[in-house]
């Protein structure tokens, strides 16, 4: 496993140096996000527009990767059907830790317009994989993508790496 496990709580409290190291590691993870674009439906087209020159998704330091092994987060854009659900699970499991998920659009958030009669639509991708950021919309505007990306970066940059267990306990 990566560096994360080995660094789990050697010293109490961590101290200034480890705190700064943690900031650095979080900074690296939050600023360099390679994504696996899991284009499923309409939202994928809007995401392509997001990648294009007007909005330029790569401003955030993201690079598209086609192999799940090299991706940091997976962007589920569109309706997840039952036929697809197993594959999404496999892909998510193939990704290397630490990994994140952005769920884009009403369909992958909750089933969207296919909620009521969609016998073949999974009602939300969060029923099979854990989701970090939800982007609402059908399809979301590129501005919504930007906000979602910034939310993910914010989330990553505040993550605990050292003394995780201890900090979680204190929160509880």
């Amino acid at each position, binding site marked *: *496993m*990566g*560096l*994360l496990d080995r660094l789990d709580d050697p010293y109490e409290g961590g101290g200034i140096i480890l705190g700064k190291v943690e900031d*650095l*590691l979080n*900074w*690296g*993870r939050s*600023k*360099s996000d390679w994504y696996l674009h899991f284009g499923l439906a309409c939202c994928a087209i809007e995401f392509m527009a997001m990648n294009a*020159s007007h909005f*330029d998704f*790569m*401003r*955030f*330091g993201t*690079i598209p*990767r*086609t*192999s799940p*092994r*090299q991706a*940091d987060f997976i962007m589920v854009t569109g309706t997840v059907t039952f036929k697809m659900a197993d594959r999404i699970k496999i892909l998510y499991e*193939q990704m*290397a*830790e*630490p990994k994140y998920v952005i769920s884009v659009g009403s369909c992958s958030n909750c089933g969207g317009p296919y909620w009521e009669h969609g016998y073949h639509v999974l009602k939300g991708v969060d029923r099979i994989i854990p989701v970090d950021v939800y982007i609402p919309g059908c399809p979301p505007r590129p501005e919504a993508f930007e906000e979602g990306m910034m939310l993910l970066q914010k989330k990553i940059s505040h993550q605990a790496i050292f003394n995780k267990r201890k900090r979680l306990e204190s929160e509880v």
Partner: protein
Amino acid sequence: MENVNFLYDLLGKNVISVLLIVSLPLMFVLVYALIAILAELKVSAWIQERLGPMRTGPWGILQPIAEVVKLIQKEDITPDRSSKLLYNLAPFIIFTGAYAAFAVIPFSEYFVPAGINLGLFYIFAVGSISAIGIVMGGWASNNKYSLMGAMRSVAQLISYEIPAAMAVLSIVVLASTMNMQEINKIQSGWFWNWFIFGGPGTLAKLWVIPFTLGLGLIYFISSLAETNRVPFDIPEGESELVAGFHTEYSGMKFAMFFFAEYANMFVVAAVLTTIFLGGWNSPFGDFMQGPFWGVFWFVSKAFTVVLVQIWIRWTLPRFRVDQLMYIGWKVLLPLSFICFMAVSLYVMLK
């Protein structure tokens, strides 16, 4: 070849100086790779009317550092059914192959890590090591895409080695040496003394200039193929083979492939610079000529070549595998033979 290194002059020939000499190119490779990655991101963005990474440091210049910090933290996956030893060895072999070539690259009049007499020969010898690494990685991953990528890659590397070698051989004939430092020294003076313009000589060399220009072009095209760059990037052609031979690699091992690719780009650019573009010589005679300016000229020339590679990467579509073979064997190889003949004739008549 004595005293080609300023460090030997400075520290004498002892363990420390040898270690320093070995580690200097390594430092250079790492720093260079970071710059090249940034350049790739930014140049591609500018070609496409975008901005590229903007939010990591001012104008995104810290982006490659963030990538490295991130890649260090990633989980290192070894697929369950892979051949573990080969799988783990492959990235190191590829990086070694790319890095070993730096041993003979003359950065300046007074700095070449190992001034051996068979420098060019050595570069071609170690350059082929990376092919072994690619095959190892592709086969050991136990992934069909990786396997196909590796097969294509090796076929491509082997076929393009020959025109590249012919191009280099012609220059060896012109210079009558395989020592890269010597080749540089021959090209000193104004830029028309560069081997791409026929090397130093009287006006009689005019008729050989088209052939040497052609040789430069042949070498450049072959070098694109050897480094798997567009339009010859079929081993990792995204649209069909997902990520080619490194589909299954993650974290630092993937970073090694990444670094090796950029290091390889620099190696071929450095060879092109050395044998065709005058190496560390100033283009303008004695103007800004000297050991320290030499580093400047050498690196800037090599970087220009790298930039051209990036430029081509974002402009052209990619070839198909059979077309690639066709170009290698039926176009570049005969052309390189013709140029070789012409250059040999010129040397005979001289």
